């Protein structure tokens, strides 16, 4: 039984003609969770989000929010609000009018709606720019306005469609801290679509990895990263080696690989790449069967025993770090 503000997807399906964009996915989002829908482009994550928002018709299945089937309600009646990828701020309205737009649509008087818009602008620290037009704002500022505009409707679930993709890398890291802070303060669910695994790991309480219109794996961020269920998840989350061994596929975190002499390792390989990454050295070796394995070594231990291209090394790991994969 769904309690307050849980969002439930029940074999939700989206078809465009004969192509299936979202294939009967089911998932339960707990109230107040920060969830990331993660996947490569075309995996159906955006269609899923847009169906939850009500901007895409549901072909099959249903969306249940707080025990209420909202699958066929108009967007504004669902208790969700969406923040668009390019922010979709109204260029002809000031920041304050943009934020107050939904209140204006529902007929709230000007003093009241401006008061509430100013409260929202205060929350995202944009009060000083309330009279500007969107085109006079930087990307990060536009995003804050878009957030304020989405939050003013007091949604139970905020839907964010690749919210950080239009920002430069520095701003992206700052804004994601901001998003997390807001989510904690407001205590509502955020569902965030992204194709960046670092973004998902940094933000999400729960990660839902999608591939090919299906949910590949869902769970707490640490579980998804540490115990990938499939080769796809292991590769997509990064930081893993997927090795095909006689007993099947296993995933190994590259920072758990131990570089040894050839006779001490479980497998041996020839070094084909040495990449300096600041705190670590990424050593890529080709092992039997043409598979590539990357080992992350702290730069100090690499300096103690430097390896050269073409050198043969052994690779060792503890049994506990090897995760069998289903495919």
């Amino acid at each position, binding site marked *: 039984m769904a309690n307050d503000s849980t969002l439930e997807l029940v074999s939700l399906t989206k078809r465009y003609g004969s192509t299936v964009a979202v294939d009967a996915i089911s998932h339960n989002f707990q109230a107040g969770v920060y969830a990331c829908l993660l996947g490569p482009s075309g995996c159906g994550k955006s269609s899923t989000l847009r169906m939850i928002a009500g901007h895409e018709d549901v072909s099959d299945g249903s969306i249940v929010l707080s025990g209420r089937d909202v699958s066929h309600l108009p*967007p*504004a009646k669902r208790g969700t609000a969406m923040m668009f990828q390019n922010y979709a701020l109204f260029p002809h309205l000031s920041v304050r009018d943009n934020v107050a737009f939904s209140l204006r649509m529902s007929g709230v008087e000007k003093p009241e709606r401006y008061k509430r818009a100013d409260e929202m602008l205060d929350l995202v620290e944009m009060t000083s720019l309330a009279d500007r037009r969107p085109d006079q704002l930087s990307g990060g500022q536009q995003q804050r306005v878009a957030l304020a505009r989405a939050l003013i409707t007091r949604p139970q679930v905020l839907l964010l469609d690749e919210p950080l993709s239009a920002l430069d890398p520095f701003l992206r890291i700052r804004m994601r801290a901001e998003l997390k802070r807001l989510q904690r303060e407001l205590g509502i669910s955020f569902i965030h679509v992204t194709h960046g695994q670092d973004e998902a790991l940094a933000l999400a309480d729960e990660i839902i990895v999608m591939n090919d219109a299906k949910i590949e794996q869902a769970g707490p961020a640490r579980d998804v990263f540490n115990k990938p269920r499939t080769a796809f998840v292991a590769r997509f989350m990064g930081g893993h080696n997927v090795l095909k061994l006689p007993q099947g596929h296993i995933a190994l975190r590259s920072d758990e690989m131990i570089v040894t002499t050839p006779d001490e390792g479980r497998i041996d390989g020839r070094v084909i790449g040495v990449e300096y990454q600041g705190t670590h050295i990424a050593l890529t070796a080709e092992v039997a069967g043409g598979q590539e394995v990357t080992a992350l070594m702290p730069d100090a231990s690499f300096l103690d025993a430097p390896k050269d291209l073409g050198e043969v090394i052994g690779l060792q790991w503890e049994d506990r770090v090897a995760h069998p994969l289903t495919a």
Partner: protein
Amino acid sequence: MTKQVTAWIQAAPMALVLLAFLVAPIIMIVIVSFWGATEYSIYPAFQFDNYEFLFGSPVTYTVFANTFKYALITWAFTFVIGFTVAYFLAFEVRSLKWQIALFLLCTIPFWTSNIIRMISWIPFLGRNGLANSTLISWGVIDEPLEWLLFSDFSVILAFVHLYTLFMVVPIFNSMMRIDRSLIEAARDAGASGWQTLRHVIIPLCKPGIMIGSIFVSTLVMGDFITVRFMSGSQRANVGRLISNDISLLQYPSASATAVVLLITVLIVIALLLRLVDIRKEL
């Protein structure tokens, strides 16, 4: 060669064309408007007789009022029809292929001359024309409707028919530039279809609406042939005033009227431009 000289040379051909075919004739008209005229001759002078006569005659005011009336009513109809057509093309037709096809369809009437398109209304609207005979055979009316042809109705009908596309094109252009996610954002904020139209689409189409309005108002205010044909010479606008003077070889008087009309139209455009800064949008 310095950059400036090159720039001047690059601008020269267009500037020369405009000087020879736009600025020079206007200067000529202004000069002639101060000349004098008798029944059989015109003579160079610098006198205000033509303007005095123009502003002293009650006919001028009626005719100018009539011109404004045509412009305003035509504007209202072309705006409503043009906006609706543009909206349909931009938002209801989903595929680009169909948009282009339907858009070209709109321009097909322009393959025939204005005058032909205008005249083709006459057999339709006439006393024993298609419209009247159909209405009579349906029993809607007993007598032919007299006001269908050679009336304000037929003049405005022809204007709307001729100039609606000038409204469709710029509005369609503005609409196509509206980011579709803005419409979704409006819907997300709970706006109904009408509210989205009123608070998002129309404000963002303002430049297109303004450009279309300038086209239509200048075309209608400068027209004389449509009024002559469609009213059977029973209605007048400023263009007809000028053309009558010309046919009587009263060039100074025609020039004076033309100068006043030019200034009037420029004032109208200036007022429209005050409402929207189109330079920002182009």
